[in-house]
């Protein structure tokens, strides 16, 4: 089992995005690079790839879709949390039913954001998770 690395402002921040839609990953990458200057943005297009990258790179936070080809985001979150229980996972999904939120929470996800609320919620959630290591003034505009 892996524990979180000590976090300081100087640490190299890394964020893993897991979503099968390349356009969405592209958009998220642009937003995150804007919010977190110099952060390393990692990408996975499916749950298996997310697990591998999470194990190899130990990102500071993971943004995970639910509907993925093959293993879904809930099962990928469970697998990641077994390996690295302190890694925060934020689910970003089109699903808005409570049943999905409950499943995500049970899998170990710390936050659940509906994709339509991404612009208003994601920056604040990441800011909180990353000990205030945000976020340029641009984040409030998005």
């Amino acid at each position: 089992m892996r524990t979180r690395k000590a976090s300081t402002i100087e640490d190299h921040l890394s964020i893993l995005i897991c979503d099968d839609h390349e356009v969405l990953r592209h958009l998220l990458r642009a937003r995150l690079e804007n919010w977190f200057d110099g952060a390393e943005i990692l990408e996975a297009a499916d749950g298996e790839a997310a697990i591998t990258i999470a194990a190899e790179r130990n990102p500071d936070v993971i943004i995970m879709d639910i509907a993925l080809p093959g293993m879904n985001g809930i099962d990928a979150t469970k697998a990641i949390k077994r390996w690295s229980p302190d890694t925060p996972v934020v689910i970003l999904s089109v699903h808005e039913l409570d049943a999905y939120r409950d499943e995500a929470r049970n899998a170990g996800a710390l936050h659940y954001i509906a994709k339509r609320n991404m612009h208003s919620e994601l920056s604040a959630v990441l800011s909180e998770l990353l000990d205030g290591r945000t976020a340029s003034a641009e984040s409030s505009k998005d």
Partner: protein
Amino acid sequence: MSSIRVLLADDHAIVLDGLRRLLEDKPDITVIADAADGREAVRLAKKLEPDVAILDIAMPALNGIEAAAQIHALRPKIRVIILSMYSTREHIYRALKAGAWGYLLKESAAQEVLKAVREVTAGRRYLSEKVSSEVLDAFLEGSDHAPIESPLERLSAREREILQLVAEGRSSSEIGKLLFLSPKTVDTYRSRLMRKLGVGDLAALVRFAIEHGVVASS
């Protein structure tokens, strides 16, 4: 040279944002409008006559393939590109048959969308690499196998529209309002399409619609 005028249609606002971001900073491309479902896409395509329409395959009210067919019938000069998560022969075949000029997979759409827009504008088809392989395989196997077909072809365009709306859980009254039909006429369509598809109840109809990509599973 005038810029390529593009219409976007996707029910997910952040995907529209992402596509806009990819296309808008290119001097030869202008995004002129976006739509959140297939019906709005058809209405805007008819009104604005873009050069290219990029349609998500899985949209509420009218999916991308049916929207492509309607746009093709109304404004055949518009080049439609389907954005899809499916690389199966049935979906590709239906999209091309509906008049689409391009078929892009979501897994590679960010890298390919610019090229696709420029290619279809120049009068050439554009298929994602995985899709091209599938089409080529289907062609090479053609002599030994039954031709590609979809059970959806047993239905008329109107029946396919109603199939999607029923599978989305809409009542006959709602569907009637949307399509300017009486609820009774909608019921008649519904009975007929169930008979044609050989399904006995609503649950089986919804399963069929999901299996064949008429509605998304989520």
